[in-house]
């Protein structure tokens, strides 16, 4: 790893061919990319844009048609690089006849971990992903969310330096999604490098430092999220406790200086925040229900006419 570069691709291309060697799809075209240590990097793009192909190439699951990929200073085809990598696939492709403990024990063995180490690590990870109650149940009995959680646990079994997450929030409910994002930020705070692919833009925006946008196998944009999203010629002020008079004066000042007022409004929270607040409130005060009366009251209190 020179200059803290964890992943480097040069002219990385992938063409899928049929049985007769004829070109079927050109999935990735001459990708040049560098991902540095400690950052959360997002691969964005619509379906079929080459995100998953890139991750598969980095992991050595498929071989490049041309160009090369280095991961942690080694060729992508070198299995020893996997000692320091964790991978969560798009869907948690795990052995459904194993239970959670057996699953983590199995993957721990693949890292040559000792028995005591495997037991300790499995216990920690099962707690981390909140599957203590279901640790002895076969994965075939797991819900999709639970399967994602155990999938994440297996990706972290070796305490990896580099974690590749393919659609990490896919199949998770809002709480699971928030926990996943918190976990990603937590891993980042511990110095891990995270590469995630997603087409859920809000998730990427929430956690990624840098992103690459792929379309039809080509790199279309690359940079820091905040730089890319920043509207240089627009300014946003968020003010609390502003009186009506002060507001009018502010508008007048803007007009007087020849600027265009794009909007002035009360901001809204996100639906995710609202949902999480309600669920936490419900957990804190179980038994409280929303009735027509409470709905009317809250509507009236907000100044909105109740229907």
């Amino acid at each position, binding site marked *: 790893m020179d200059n803290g570069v964890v992943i480097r691709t040069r002219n990385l291309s992938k063409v899928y061919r049929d049985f007769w060697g004829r070109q079927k799809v050109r999935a990735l075209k001459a990708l040049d990319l560098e991902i540095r240590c400690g950052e959360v990097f997002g691969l964005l793009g619509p379906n079929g844009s080459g995100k998953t192909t890139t991750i598969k190439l980095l992991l*050595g*699951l498929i071989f490049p048609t041309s160009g090369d990929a280095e991961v942690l200073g080694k060729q992508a085809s070198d*299995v020893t690089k*996997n000692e320091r990598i964790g991978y969560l696939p798009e869907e948690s*492709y795990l052995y459904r006849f*194993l239970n959670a403990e057996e699953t983590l024990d199995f993957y721990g*063995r*693949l890292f040559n971990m000792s028995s005591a180490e495997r037991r300790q690590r499995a216990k920690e990870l099962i707690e981390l992903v909140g599957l203590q109650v279901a640790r002895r149940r076969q994965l075939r009995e797991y819900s999709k969310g639970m399967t994602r959680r155990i999938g994440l646990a297996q990706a972290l079994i070796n305490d990896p330096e580099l974690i590749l997450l393919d659609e990490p929030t896919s199949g998770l409910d809002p709480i699971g999604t928030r926990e996943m994002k918190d976990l990603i930020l937590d891993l980042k705070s511990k110095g891990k490098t995270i590469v995630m692919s997603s087409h859920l833009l809000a998730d990427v925006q929430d956690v990624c430092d840098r992103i690459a946008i792929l379309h039809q196998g080509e790199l279309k944009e690359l940079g820091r999220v905040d730089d890319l999203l920043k509207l240089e010629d627009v300014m946003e002020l968020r003010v609390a406790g502003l009186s009506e008079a002060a507001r009018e004066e502010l508008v007048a000042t803007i007009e007087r200086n020849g600027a265009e007022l794009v909007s002035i409004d009360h901001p809204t929270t996100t639906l995710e925040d609202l949902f999480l607040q309600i669920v936490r409130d419900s957990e804190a005060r179980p038994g409280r229900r929303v009735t027509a009366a409470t709905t009317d009251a809250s509507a009236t209190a907000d100044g909105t006419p109740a229907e």
Partner: protein
Amino acid sequence: MIIEAPLPAFADWWAGAATWWLIVVGLLGAAVLVLGLIGAIVRQGPVAGPRSFVRFVGSALGDLVRMSPRRVGAIMRLAVLESVRRMVLAVFVVFIVILLFAGWYLDPGTNEPAKLYLSFLLSTTSYLVLLLALLLSVFSLPNDIRNRTIYTVVTKPVRPSELVLGRILGFSLIGTAMLAATGIASYVFVVRGLDHTHEVVVDSLVAGDSGNLTGRTSLDNGHRHEVRIGADGNGRADVAQDHWHSITAQQRGTETIYEVGPPQGMLEARVPIVGTLLFTDRQGRVGETAQDVGKESKYRSWIEGGTQGSAMYTFAGVTPEQFPDGLPVELNLGVFRTHKGDVSKGILGSIILRNPDNPEIAAAPLNFVAEEYRSDLKRFARELTTSDGDKLDLFADLAPDGRIEVKIVCLEPGQYYGMAPTDVYLRARDASFAGNMFKAYVGIWLQMVVITAIGVTLSTFLNAAVAMLGTFALILAGFARGFIDDVANNQVLGGGPLESLIRLVTQANVSTPLEPGLSTTIAQTFDDLYQGLLRAVVELIPDLGVLSQVGRLANGFNIPADGVAVHMVMTLGYVAPIFVAGYVLLKMREVAG
């Protein structure tokens, strides 16, 4: 009851086998390397191609030598868990059900009940376990690839070599457990199923001149025995259905009770000492073969009765220490009649023990009646007499240096005895039957390991259905390896495939040469090319048939430990390159689509 091909001694076998193995594997490896290099150059150009090829070969060698036992163990354990949780052990239940029903239709009253029971049980076990090995080995890896569970495995530091070896070991372990369970069940079934006794039918007993009694036993297990009881009240029930019983008398008041013991000589593991064989023809000329009576099988040569034709077996290691109770010579002769004679009687012959260096020193001939399809044990005491009545010592006079000659002649003119080197042997001792059964199961186990390795290897680059068909085809070819060898070496009557086709169409006799002509030349040239190719390919087909020793067990012969060692090394010789091939194929493959 014959053993056509004695197993080779390990010491005599390994050097030649190892050399041949190195030649075949070396040539194959070289061919693969050359093809790989050409492929890399074609795909990546003359500069990058060789570089990438060398990198691949280096990495492949690294993968092979740096395998982690723990990772191999993990994959093996996964294969076992997968099999167990997918109810594969239900196969054992199927076997038990077959055993339960077998009791209904296996007739212990047949001539050779032990052979019937053992052949049936071991064949059933073979079919079930080999089928299990086939199904387990070909479905696992393609399922992993199809379900993409392999993604989470190969993204760990797992080498393809570990994936292949772990699976081979895991499924072999399942097969081993299955074989152990079916083996124990089979042993109990055979021993209990054949165990029986009789009662002496007192009314049938007739007193002889010397106070001996003769009579018969009750009819049990579909047979009865002739009984001979001595003046002391003890005796034996004569051989029937390949076994006999001892009889002891017990006096209870005024009544004599005859107790018939358990069957003996039924479940045995004879240890034969085989000698060398020479023949004399009807004019007395010595040769390695005798007459051909026109039978398709060339296994035996035939000597004509009433002529100077004879078979001379020379055995070594005949010492008083080895044979303290005299010389046990067991005969398994073939009989060929040119006229019917008395079909209810066997053909008369005689055995003469001679000093091989001085044939003038010979014991008086022992006349006997040869019966087909039965082993006939003759015991020669240490003290013998010549035809003139002079005394001879078996060891001092006939085998002073441990070698003795056993000469066999047919006495009836116009009738023939057929003999091969393994038809007459010294029965040195009897080994443990249970131990022999274990060794027979080791043979099935070796077949199972080879099939598992083939299945796993084919499944590294084929989908499950195609891998199953491919493995099945190789199993068939493996069991027919002897025949394929014969076809490749032009040892089959009727020529190669094209010549045979012409014979089929023209209804030409297989033993008559085809009419010379253009079509014959074309057919035979094609067949020569085909057979040359087949000779090369046949070396790549594991000889599965030779690994099984079920016939030897069923016929009551000991399976030598030396032979088992040969087969184990042979299996390793098959499995090692199959494993390497599976590893290389998996390494070259993109496991994600």
